[in-house]
C-alpha cells in the first residue's frame, strides 16, 4: 500500500492553472504574478495576494482556484479540498477543480472519492466523456486480442468490432452556446485541446461511423407500450419515478424504441448535437454493447406542476466498463406520460 500511495502522488498531476479561463482575463497580470510567486514557492506572499484579489472579486474562479493550489502546497489539504469542492459546486463545467480534488483525495488514500472526482472531470465536457468511453472500449478490445494470444484461442470467435461513438459536431466556443456562461471573466467554455473528431475523422480514425441511413425509424407513430401508468394524478411523483425506472429498464434491455421514446421532442441533447445525430450516437453506443446494466438508487423527485426533476445515483455497467455517477433528469408531463427534457450528470 505504501508503494502504491507514493506512485499515485507521483503520477496524479495537480493542475496549477485553469487553462481555459486564464488566457482571456482582464486581470491576467495579477494572475501571472501570483502564479510566479507560487512557482517560486513563496506561498504566504501568494496567498496574501490572492486573498486581496478575492476581497473585490469573491466569486472569481481563477483566484479561488489558485487559492486551492496554494493551500495544498502549504500542507493544508482539508482547506484545499474545501476550496476546490466549492468551486465544483459553483462551476461544475470546469474540469480542473475536479482533477485537483482527485489529487488531494488520492494523497489521503481516498481512492473512491478520487475516482468519482476524475470521472466528474471527464464528464464536464461531453467530448471528453465520449473519448474516454471510446478509449475504454479500445483498451478492452486490445486486451481481448492479447488474451486470445495468451490463451491460444482462435481470434475469430470474439471479434465483434466495437461500435465507437463518433462525435458529429465540433464542440464550439460559446459564441452560440446556450449554456450559461460561467462569469464574465471566464468567457470561454473549455475547448478540447485537440478536437476529438474533426470532419476528416471517419476516413482516418478506426472508428466505425454511424451512417445516417442507419438512423432508427422513430416509433412515434406506433404506440409504444406506455411505461408509465396512465392515470395516477393522485401521486404524480410516483408516475415520474415509474417513468425513470422504465427508462433505465429500456436502456438495460437495449430496447431503443422505448429508450428513445422516453425523451421528449423538446429534449436538448448535450454539446449542441441535433436530435437525429444524438439518436444515432445513442443507438450506436447502446446496441454496440453485448450487455448493459443500469441500476438506479437514491431516487428523489421534485415536482413543480407539470415539470419534475428526478435525481439519483446511476450504476452503469457495460461489457468491461463500470461507471457510477449522479444523474439528474428534467422531465415534463406530456399527456399521460412523463418525458425527459434534459439529462445531466453531476449535481
Amino acid at each position, binding site marked *: 500500500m505504501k*508503494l*502504491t500511495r*507514493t*506512485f*499515485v502522488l507521483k*503520477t496524479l498531476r495537480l493542475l496549477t492553472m485553469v487553462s481555459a479561463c486564464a488566457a482571456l482575463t482582464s486581470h491576467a497580470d495579477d494572475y501571472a504574478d501570483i502564479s510566479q510567486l507560487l512557482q517560486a514557492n513563496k506561498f504566504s506572499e501568494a496567498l496574501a495576494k490572492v486573498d486581496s484579489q478575492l476581497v473585490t472579486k469573491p466569486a472569481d474562479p481563477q483566484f479561488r482556484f489558485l487559492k486551492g493550489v496554494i493551500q495544498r502546497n502549504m500542507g493544508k489539504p482539508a482547506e484545499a479540498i474545501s476550496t476546490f469542492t466549492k468551486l465544483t459546486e459553483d462551476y461544475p463545467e470546469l474540469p480542473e477543480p475536479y482533477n485537483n480534488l482527485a489529487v488531494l483525495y*488520492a494523497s489521503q488514500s481516498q*481512492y473512491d472519492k*478520487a*475516482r468519482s472526482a476524475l470521472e466528474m472531470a471527464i464528464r464536464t465536457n461531453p467530448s471528453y466523456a465520449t473519448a474516454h468511453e471510446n*478509449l*475504454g*472500449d479500445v*483498451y*478492452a478490445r*486490445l*486486451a*481481448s486480442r*492479447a*488474451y*486470445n*494470444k*495468451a*490463451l*491460444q*484461442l482462435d481470434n475469430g*470467435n*470474439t471479434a465483434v468490432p466495437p461500435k465507437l461513438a463518433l462525435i458529429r459536431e465540433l464542440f464550439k466556443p460559446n459564441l452560440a452556446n446556450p449554456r450559461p456562461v460561467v462569469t464574465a471573466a471566464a468567457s470561454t467554455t473549455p475547448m478540447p485541446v485537440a478536437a476529438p473528431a474533426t470532419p476528416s475523422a471517419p476516413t482516418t480514425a478506426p472508428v466505425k461511423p454511424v451512417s445516417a441511413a442507419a438512423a432508427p425509424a422513430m416509433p412515434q407513430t406506433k404506440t409504444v407500450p406506455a411505461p408509465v401508468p396512465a392515470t395516477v394524478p393522485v401521486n404524480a411523483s410516483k408516475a415520474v419515478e415509474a417513468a425513470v425506472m422504465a427508462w433505465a429498464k429500456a436502456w438495460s434491455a437495449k430496447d431503443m424504441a422505448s429508450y428513445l421514446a422516453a425523451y421528449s421532442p423538446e429534449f436538448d441533447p448535450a454539446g449542441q448535437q441535433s436530435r437525429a445525430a444524438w439518436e444515432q450516437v445513442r443507438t450506436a453506443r447502446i446496441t454496440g454493447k453485448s450487455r448493459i446494466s443500469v441500476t438506479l438508487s437514491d431516487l428523489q423527485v421534485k415536482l413543480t406542476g407539470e415539470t419534475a426533476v428526478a435525481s439519483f445515483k446511476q450504476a452503469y455497467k457495460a*461489457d*468491461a*466498463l*463500470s461507471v457510477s455517477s449522479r444523474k439528474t433528469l428534467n422531465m415534463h408531463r406530456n399527456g399521460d406520460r412523463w418525458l425527459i427534457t434534459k439529462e445531466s450528470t453531476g449535481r
Partner: protein
Amino acid sequence: MNSTAFACALCLLLGAVQTQAKVKNKKTKPALTASQTQQNGAAEARLIAIYRLIGKGDTRTALKQAEQLLKTNPSFALAQLTYADLLSAQARPLQAFGDAPPDQRILGHDTLADLRSESLLRLKALRERPDAGTLPSEFLKLAAHNKHAIAIDASLARLYLFENRANGPVLVADYYISLGKLGIDKRVEGDQRTPLGVYFITSQLDPKTLKDFYGSGALPINYPNVLDIKRGKTGGGIWLHGTPPGQFSRAPLASNGCLVLANPDLLSIVRQVEIRTTPVLISKKLKWVPAASLKPSTHEFTSQLHAWLKAKSSGNLTNLATFYAPDFNHNGKSLSDWLPTLQHEVSTWQGKSLEIKDLSLLRWVDTHETMVVTFGEVARGQRSGQTRRQYWSREGTQWKIFYESVAS
C-alpha cells in the same frame, strides 16, 4: 483505482518477489547482477521486472515494458497474459491475475490455469533460491573432468546449471523447465512422467535432424539407468529439449516425460555442457546443503571404496567377492558369471597396487541409498588406466556393488 486493484490481484505473487529481495539484503548476498540476469533467462527477468512495477502500482511503465518484451518474445504466452491484464486495467478494475472476460476465460480455461501455474512456479523458484555455497545433497563429489552438472527441482519446475571450478561447483544459471504431463517418477513406457534419479547426458542431437517440435536442440539422458532397470522400469527417449516455433515456453506439466526448456535457455546449456561427463540429477525437491557438510558422507563412502581397491590390489578373490551384492548384475551376468572377469583382471595386476583418480560420487536416496561412482583405475606407475563406473547400494552399514562396467 485500477492500478491498486491490479496490484492487489497480484500481491501474493509480488509479495513473493519482494520477500526474496529482502532476504537477499539481509544476508548481504549480492542481488543478481545484470549479466547474470541476462544469462538466467532474459525474458523471465524482464517479466519479473514488469511484475515488480505492477506491485508498485506503476501500470503505465509496466504496460510499456510488456509491449517491448512482446516485441522480442512474441510467443511468450505468460508475458502476453500480463500484457492483456495491463490493457484491461486501463478500462476496468481487475479481480485476479489473468482476468480474461468470461467467454475467453471459459474457452481458454485450461491454458489459463497452466499460465497461472507457470507464473507461480517461476516466482516460487525466485523466492526459494538456494543459499550461496550450498549444493544439492546428491552431489557428494564431482571429478575435475565433470566440467558441469545439472540439477532439476521438479517442485519448482527449475533447472540449475553448475560449473565445476577449482574450489567446487558454482551455480551459474537456472531456468524454468517443463516436465511430463502426469508429473514425475516415471515407471513404465508411455506413462507421460519424468523419471527421478541420477543420469548423464549421453549425446547431443543436431536440431537440423529433429522435428521443429524439439526447438533448438536435444540432449538425451541415460534413462533407464542401471538402478531403474534393476527395478523393472521401462521406456526411454528422455531428452532435454527446446520448444516448438510459436511457443516460447510450455506449461509446467506438458511433455511425455522429457525436460523442456525455452530455446534460448536450452541453447545456452548446449553450448556449455559436455556429453557423457555431465550429470543430470532429477529430484522431486532438491535438498540444498553447505558443500562442507557433504564431507563426512564422502569420507565414509571412500573408505569402503578404498577397502574394495585394497582387496582388488591384494588379489584375494574371496575377499574381493564380499564387496559385491548377491543380486549383482552386469548386463545380464550374475556375480558368479562376473567373478572370472575379476579373476582375470586381478591376475594381470600381479600384485601392483591400484590408485583411484578423478573420483565422482553421486548419491541417490529413495527407498534405498545408491551411490553412482565413476573413477579412473590406474596401476601405480602408470599414466592412464580404465574408467570404471559402479553402482553401490547401502545394506545396513555396508555398501555393496550391484553393477560395474569399464569404459575405455
